[in-house]
């Protein structure tokens, strides 16, 4: 609006313009009525893009010195090299020349779009041989300042005072020798102490949205790993859970630790936009403690899945199987016709090449030694037999091999201390219409690795589950027909027969489809999950007797604590109701239940292996009575205290309730008349003889019982 307009308008409205104090007029905050402010500051809305430094510039030295005629050619060569590594900014390559002669000075500046590209270009081309006499020396422009200011005299670097790290294994020193477990329910992830004495859990750490998919303990229990969009993170510490390290890997889906928890393998797969393409897979291997990425693997899912293309969508996890015991020396990958074994010193292939094994479909490491077992199925319609072989790593020497005929499938099971390997062999019957199963048992620690063939009493029984006793010589098999299969126990070693497998016994018609050995052996749970609705049988294999039969209705998961003292059974959110977990003692006594809606996961914190020698452990087992006395006394004290506390708590609750009832009663009394009025003056029976009724109560019960019994008799 021009000034004239304003004046005329003011005149129209009869306002004396000169008397209006413009400064007294304020617009309501945040409202400008569409009037543009002419304040200087407002025009600075469009932020200028400032160069934040020279971090994206590199200096390339040791270039050939060329005359003007060859300047363009050299420039093109440089552009060609560096364009592969990043986007050079427009006019971003500047090669200074001697102003007198027009000859280049042997160096140039290159400006990239981002500092990351510059860094990458520096790393990749430092030391690049253009020809014999010209080896690139590449530096970041920013580094020049720093390098120029180096002091002439050498200064001893300051020694930082030693900061002791947190004791990451403090949980093992718990006075009550309890174990920890992690659970996820709803948005929360919680770490809890299992406190069987208090018949409850004690919280350690709780955090909502701690992870975006799941959590996992490291194999020795030191770390808890959480997954996020940006990557994985490990948590741990002495008293509470603090973040110890992060591993950048966008959209990480799965993680896996090496058995000695030195390395973390992360996995991510990208669904292809075209469904016919294989999905893209990226796997990274990190050093857990330093957080450094040691190696990454990229490729299409086909290269990482077993059985060749068209088999499984995505890779079967874990892609890399760790071997070589707790030293984390080797890891192996199976792909079509090859087994690639990497060693962790260089993160390269052993002998720089993969092993060629035609049609290999399965590999399995010994849990303690660097021995790899592999299975090759039948070829050429039975002309070439199937084969199970043991290969020593890194020598790649075949220790033992066995050819098997008319085989449909094999499954390999290592015993936890690497002493035995059981191979379940499914063979075709003569008609080829059905299969039957047997076992090939390898004794790894004996000379020449003898193999024994075991067939079940009834050859045609289907095998439903198989499990080795941890650290022991026994194994259990569920075999036979659903819904009531049999469970048999065998031992590899008996007093009479040193080296022969012997059957210990068979339990007939059990409602079981899964086996869960205690980590310390001797005890086993025969579980009927899924169709069997959570039947549990706690069985002592030493005595061959059932300790308890019980049920955790609809249980989906069963996990022993690392010491073999307690078992947790859980109903996860695959079912809608009764979500939560139950903790039992090893002999099937129910200790406590925890109900949690939307229950997803339960995992006990593993413990590292004991430092005690087997002899020492045996000695302790022998003198168990001596040691257990102390704990029994403690248990007694706690249970006394607990019942005392319980009584107190109940008393308090009762008192609180009584108090509330009294308070309400007095109010009720006050309102008595009003109530009567509402009822047209009728007095309620309850109010007439409130006190009397109470006293009569006990007597009344007696009467009632008589009445009900008569009814039943009718």
């Amino acid at each position, binding site marked *: 609006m021009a000034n004239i307009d304003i004046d005329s308008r003011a005149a129209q409205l009869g306002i004396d313009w000169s008397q209006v104090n413009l400064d007294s007029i304020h617009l309501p905050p945040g409202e400008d009525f569409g009037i543009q402010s002419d304040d200087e500051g407002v025009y600075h809305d469009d932020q200028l893009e400032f160069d934040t430094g020279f971090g994206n510039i590199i200096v390339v030295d040791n270039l050939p010195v060329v005359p003007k005629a060859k300047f363009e050619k050299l420039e093109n060569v440089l552009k060609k090299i560096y364009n592969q590594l990043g986007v050079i900014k427009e006019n971003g390559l500047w090669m200074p020349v001697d102003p007198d002669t027009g000859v280049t000075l042997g160096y140039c500046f290159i400006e990239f779009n981002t500092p990351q590209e510059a860094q990458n270009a520096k790393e990749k081309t430092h030391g690049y041989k253009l020809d014999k006499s010209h080896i690139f020396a590449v530096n970041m422009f920013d580094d020049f300042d720093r390098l120029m200011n180096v002091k002439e005299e050498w200064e001893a670097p300051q020694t930082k005072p030693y900061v002791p790290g947190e004791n990451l294994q403090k949980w093992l020193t718990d006075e009550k020798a309890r174990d920890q477990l992690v659970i996820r329910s709803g948005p929360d992830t919680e770490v809890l102490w299992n406190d069987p004495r208090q018949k409850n859990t004690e919280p350690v750490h709780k955090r909502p949205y701690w992870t975006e998919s799941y959590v996992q303990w490291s194999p020795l229990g030191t770390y808890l790993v959480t997954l996020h969009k940006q990557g994985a993170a490990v948590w741990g510490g002495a008293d509470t859970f603090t973040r110890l390290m992060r591993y950048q890997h966008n959209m990480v889906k799965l993680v896996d630790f090496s058995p000695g928890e030195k390395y973390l393998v992360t996995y991510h797969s990208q669904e292809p936009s075209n469904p016919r393409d294989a999905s893209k897979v990226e796997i990274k291997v990190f050093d857990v403690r330093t957080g450094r990425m040691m190696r990454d693997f990229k490729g299409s899912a086909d290269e990482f899945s077993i059985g060749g293309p068209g088999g499984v969508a995505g890779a079967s996890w874990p892609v890399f199987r760790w071997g070589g015991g707790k030293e984390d020396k080797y890891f192996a990958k199976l792909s079509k016709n090859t087994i690639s074994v990497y060693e962790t010193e260089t993160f390269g292939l052993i002998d720089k090449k993969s092993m060629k094994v035609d049609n290999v479909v399965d590999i399995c490491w010994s849990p303690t030694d660097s021995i790899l077992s592999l299975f090759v199925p039948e070829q050429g319609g039975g002309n070439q037999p199937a084969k199970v072989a043991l290969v020593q790593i890194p020598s790649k020497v075949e220790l033992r091999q066995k050819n098997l005929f008319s085989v449909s499938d094999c499954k390999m099971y290592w015993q936890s201390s690497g002493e035995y390997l059981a191979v379940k062999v499914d063979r075709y019957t003569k008609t080829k219409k059905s299969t039957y199963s047997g076992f090939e048992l390898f004794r790894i620690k004996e000379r020449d690795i003898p193999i024994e063939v075991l067939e079940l009493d009834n050859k045609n029984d289907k095998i439903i589950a198989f499990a080795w006793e941890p650290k022991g010589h026994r194994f259990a098999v569920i075999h036979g027909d659903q819904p009531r299969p049999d469970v048999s126990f065998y031992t590899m070693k008996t007093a009479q027969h040193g080296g022969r497998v012997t059957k210990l016994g068979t339990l007939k018609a059990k409602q079981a489809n899964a086996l869960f050995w205690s980590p310390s052996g001797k005890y086993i749970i025969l579980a009927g999950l899924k169709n069997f609705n959570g039947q549990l049988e706690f069985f002592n294999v030493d005595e061959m007797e059932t300790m308890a039969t019980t049920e955790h209705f609809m249980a989906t998961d069963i996990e022993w604590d690392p010491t073999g003292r307690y078992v947790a059974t859980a109903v996860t959110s695959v079912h809608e109701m009764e979500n939560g977990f139950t903790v039992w003692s090893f002999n099937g006594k129910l200790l406590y239940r925890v109900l949690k*809606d939307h229950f997803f996961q339960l995992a006990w914190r593993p413990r590292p292996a004991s430092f005690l020698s087997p002899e020492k452990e045996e000695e302790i087992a022998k003198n168990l009575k001596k040691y257990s006395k102390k704990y029994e006394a403690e248990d007694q004290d706690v249970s006394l205290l607990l019942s005392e506390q319980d009584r107190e708590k109940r008393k308090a609750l009762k008192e609180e309730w009584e108090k509330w009832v009294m308070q309400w009663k007095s109010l009720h009394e006050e309102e008595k008349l009003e109530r009567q009025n509402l009822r047209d003056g009728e007095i309620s029976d309850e109010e007439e003889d409130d006190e009397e009724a109470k006293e009569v109560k006990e007597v009344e019960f007696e009467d009632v019982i008589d009445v009900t019994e008569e009814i039943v008799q009718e």
Partner: protein
Amino acid sequence: MRRSSPCDKERAFKEKMRPILMKGHERPLTFLRYNRDGDMLFSCAKDHTPTLWYADNGERHGTFRGHNGAVWCCDVSRDSLRLITGSADQSAKLWDVKTGQQLFSFKFGSPARSVDFALGDKLAVITTDPFMERTSAIHVKRIAEDPEDQVSESVLVLESPNGRKRINRAVWGPLNQTIVSGGEDAVLRIWDAETGKLLKESDSEVGHKNTITSLTKSADDSHFITGSLDKTAKACLWDMRTLTLLKTYVSGVPVNAVSMSPLLDHVVLGGGQDASAVTTTDHRAGKFEAKFYDKILQEEIGGVKGHFGPINALAFNPDGKSFSSGGEDGYVRLHHFDSDYFNIRI
């Protein structure tokens, strides 16, 4: 009765406490109500005919014919002469209990979900469902002494602030001064019964997280208990000033019905897996069990199994010596407690 609290002491009481099965309805039960003397039991079901039973032996006394839709709720007057029922046929009807004759019919534009007589039986509160463009509402009707004088006008109509969500239950507060309602939006509300003003809402932090399915007052009107699909039942201090949460009972399954013993400090919860999922799972998966809890200690003390579908209705006899449950399976099960029940100590 199954005692569940001390796990090793678990015992089956099945043989002793044999329930009386009352098969009179052809469709799932919806509501059960004892009269004040405890000799009559009224049952409502989706099969249009509320039924009256002898509460002692379970014999059928008679039916109330006239509704043309599922009957959701009923209430009986203090003198046991009048019955009021709310039905999906968009009406609430007054009945003469003696003759079974219909006395009056309140017409609404949407199904009537719950009914409750006030102290003195001169007022009744009726809730209606959201239907077409109507929102859920609470109606207060004056009940005339002589049915001839009965009028259908409402004394007061309360609109829920969350009207598209169904109000499942509304009952009278002490001295008829307030009305308490709960429904699909999981919020308990206390209204002034005179002015219709909203006085208080339950705290969403401590309250239910899912649809409130049922609301039952204690015998002395001092507090009430609510059950919800969020698998808990909560007892709330029944006070127009506080609406304080006193106790929570966790059941692990959706709760459809709740009741409190007038005699002992016990509450009972009934419910189970949603009826639509029953056929796909094992019959034991549903947990169609009436669960008993100690009211003060909030500990589960036992359960009564038997229904072959979710429990939709529960009621205690006013003498506290028997209770009945109504299920999706169409049965009413009448249980007279045995001596063990009265000797439960935890």
